[in-house]
């Protein structure tokens, strides 16, 4: 029993030396969505607390995200999140790309797929209510529609 505990502890210590390569944090982004587009304050607030940790360069890493093996998961999810959608580069996107991302936001949020469960479990304030979801979906659709003349 003792031996197992010692082995586990040793493994825990050793994996701390494996670099997690957490994506770099940049707090000021001149092409950021909220900085460049006219996002209503309540929507901007919700995006910041429920989406921006993974979908922008402004990630807030909690203390435990520096501890392996959690750091590996956080690193992967943040990287993947930014790759799929990064609000920090929003203003550089073409209108079509914006329309695509807004359509995806609409789908993911309406369906309840985003934010991911593991994230809302660890960040209680990030959970979106039914009303929040409707508000974000409606904003995304209106914003996308405003980009094109029908």
């Amino acid at each position: 029993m003792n031996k197992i505990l010692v082995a586990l502890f040793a493994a825990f210590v050793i994996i701390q030396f494996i670099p997690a390569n957490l994506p770099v944090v940049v707090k000021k982004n001149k092409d950021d969505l909220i900085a460049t587009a006219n996002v209503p304050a309540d929507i901007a607030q919700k995006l910041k607390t429920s989406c921006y940790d993974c979908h922008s360069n402004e990630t807030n890493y909690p203390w435990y995200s520096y501890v392996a093996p959690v750091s590996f998961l956080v690193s992967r999810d943040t990287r993947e999140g930014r790759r799929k959608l990064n609000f920090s580069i929003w203003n550089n996107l073409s209108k079509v790309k914006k329309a695509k991302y807004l359509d995806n936001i609409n789908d993911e949020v309406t369906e309840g797929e985003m934010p991911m469960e593991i994230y809302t479990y660890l960040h209680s304030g990030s959970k979106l209510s039914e009303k929040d979801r409707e508000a974000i979906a409606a904003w995304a659709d209106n914003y996308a529609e405003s980009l094109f003349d029908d």
Partner: protein
Amino acid sequence: MYKIKIKNFNTMKKIILLSAMLFTAAIFVSISATEDIVNNTIPGNEKYVVPENVQAIIDNKCFDCHNTKSKNLKAKMKLKFDKMAHLKTHKLLGKLDNIAETVTEGDMPPKKAIKKYPDLKLTAEEVKTLSDWSNGLISKIAGE
């Protein structure tokens, strides 16, 4: 009296002939309208144009999940090919760009589905056909 009857008869003939011509014309109009719908171009929204070779790929590899009556709710929610022609421009462009991206990155059809039905896998040529079609439509519609 008799003469008048003949005159009436001639008028009658003319009317029948005219109706027959109108009827024939109407058939031609309705046939061309049906063809439009087959090509997914709905009058009033001529933006969504699907050539036959693209339609064949969609029918064989996408439509079973991505249609209005699909039992796959997630797939149905994200994309319904039988509704594309009815979408507003911003939605249509968003869906088209997603199609190009997901087939190019190999995310669609889903790996699980391909495991069960290997024939669903898109060939490299089909991927190119679909993404060229999506991107072509996008630039035509959005000028981007």
